[in-house]
């Protein structure tokens, strides 16, 4: 029997256990194992190795589950307490934005009047108006960024590809 025949048999033995093999390969392997003691022994050892994995057991430390459950409940409580603060923040942002839109024409006139009284260039008070309008959004963004920074990093690997 040639060396390559054994090589193919050994490869198929491993492949059958790792990812499965085609029916034709399986038949060929069965026939080969019937007449080859070396490959049969190899298959037996491989199966023994895999059986050992199935039977391997590790004792669970006492109280591990209870401790984990306790910690998870504690953390869940913390997260729940944080939720109303988030809702308040979003509400404040929304209210501020609506008020900002509604009052924009009046504020524009106010800035124009201030510009006229102080004699500052038009571009300056226009920028001032723009900044005033973005302040609530900037404030909210800063608060949210700080809030997120306090939490642990959110790595990409926890997100699923689908």
């Amino acid at each position, binding site marked *: 029997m040639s060396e390559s025949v054994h090589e193919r048999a050994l490869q198929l033995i491993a492949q059958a256990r790792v990812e499965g093999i085609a029916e034709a390969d399986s038949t060929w392997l069965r026939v080969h194992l019937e007449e080859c003691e070396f490959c049969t022994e190899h298959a037996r050892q491989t199966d023994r190795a895999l059986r050992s*994995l199935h*039977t391997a*057991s*590790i004792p669970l430390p006492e109280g591990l589950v209870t401790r984990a459950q306790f910690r998870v409940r504690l953390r*869940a409580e913390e997260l729940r307490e944080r939720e109303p603060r988030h809702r308040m923040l979003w509400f404040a942002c929304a209210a501020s934005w609506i008020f900002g839109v509604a009052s924009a024409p009046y504020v524009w006139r106010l800035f124009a009047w201030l510009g006229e009284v102080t004699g500052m260039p038009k571009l300056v008070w226009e920028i001032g108006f723009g900044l005033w309008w973005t302040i609530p959004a900037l404030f909210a963004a800063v608060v949210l960024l700080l809030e997120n920074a306090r939490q642990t990093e959110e790595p990409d690997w926890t997100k699923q590809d689908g």
Partner: protein
Amino acid sequence: MGDEAKSIARGLQKRDPDLLDRLIEQYQYRLFRYLVYVTGNKERAEDFFQETWIRVLERGHQYDGKSKFEAWLFAIARHLVIDWQRSKKAQSLDTLTDPDQEHPLQLTNEKDPSPLHQVLSQETEQNVQASLQKIPAVYREVLVLRFQEELQIEEMAGVLSVPLSTVKSRLYRGLEALRGALQGGAAS
């Protein structure tokens, strides 16, 4: 994926504490065993066990129920271990997970008596367990995921964040190493 995965996903979205309690109990042994094999250390595995469930609570909204929950769970556990290892050794993730590197995912000093060995030696099949301990962690991990946890190769690729071909090559090498270790030969 089944209704159970969808139901878990819905529960995790709501951070349902009762669901978390049930999941912790249901997956306690599998997760702990996986962590012991990956870290090679029982005490550390205990810490990671708790951290993993905290992470599941915090990031539960990212589980969509389209894949097996255990695959997602193992991925979280694995990355916690790698993050810790990376911060400890200040090495890159790729270096730690590349099987061709000198000591991939090997947390313990091989010259010292391994805590994993201490844990495993309590068991009746000491010879088998000691053989497992001889295998590099990166191969031990794929063997555990495939033959103990019975994950599909595609699911394993997701857990390990590597291509299918890498999973397969690690499995073949791991199987060979395990066989060799059981025979009493060199496992590498």
